[in-house]
């Protein structure tokens, strides 16, 4: 399946882009996506525990299953206001 992945703030700086198209096996979870990114960029492993994840603009847990066409975002601790 194909998904869109968004990165913001410090996470965007680490990954080097704000948006990526990625392909994952059917049935993959948020944890699987994190593992894939961590293999590409080791420092993502350190950052991941502090990140919230949203799927289609709603916060989800790590075991959430992804679906084709999903918009996934990695959300560092927010600091708006």
């Amino acid at each position, binding site marked *: 399946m194909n998904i869109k992945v968004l990165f913001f703030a410090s996470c965007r700086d680490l990954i080097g882009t704000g948006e990526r198209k990625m392909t994952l096996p059917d049935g993959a979870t948020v944890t699987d996506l994190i593992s894939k990114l961590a293999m590409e960029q080791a420092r993502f492993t350190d950052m991941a525990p502090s990140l919230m994840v949203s799927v289609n603009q709603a916060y989800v847990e790590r075991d959430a299953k992804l679906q084709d066409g999903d918009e996934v975002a990695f959300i560092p*601790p927010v*600091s708006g206001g």
Partner: protein
Amino acid sequence: MAGDVYKIQDKKIKPDALYNAVLADSDGAVTTFAGVVRDNTKGRGTSYLVYDAYRDMAEKKMREIGKEVKEKWEVDCVGILHRVGRLEIGEISVLIAISSPHRKASLEACHYAIDRLKQTVPIWKKEVWTDGGEAWIEGDPSALASR
């Protein structure tokens, strides 16, 4: 005519930008909170700020805050604006205005809304200091538990 407003915007926010939008004839109170770019953080001089947002989701979470507010208090309208991009000292980063028939509801709801915004709305602030340093500020991760 009065209605809710939830918006991420690039252009400058004026302090009265939401006042007329939220005010109806049946309202007796409007409380407005403006978050402003301060010239320092714990004494370290700030040069300017940059705000980044997950725009669509941020507006969605702001709408959710408005809904929570209306469940908890007898308020009329809720307006929330947040700016993104580069902001100079003294400029408004966030503006919240809440109207209600009686004062207590708008005062308490406005306080609640800005606290919630800082917990749940996907917006980030980068501080650029006068000493040349810069960093993305991270909020309290425990706050995210109460998303």
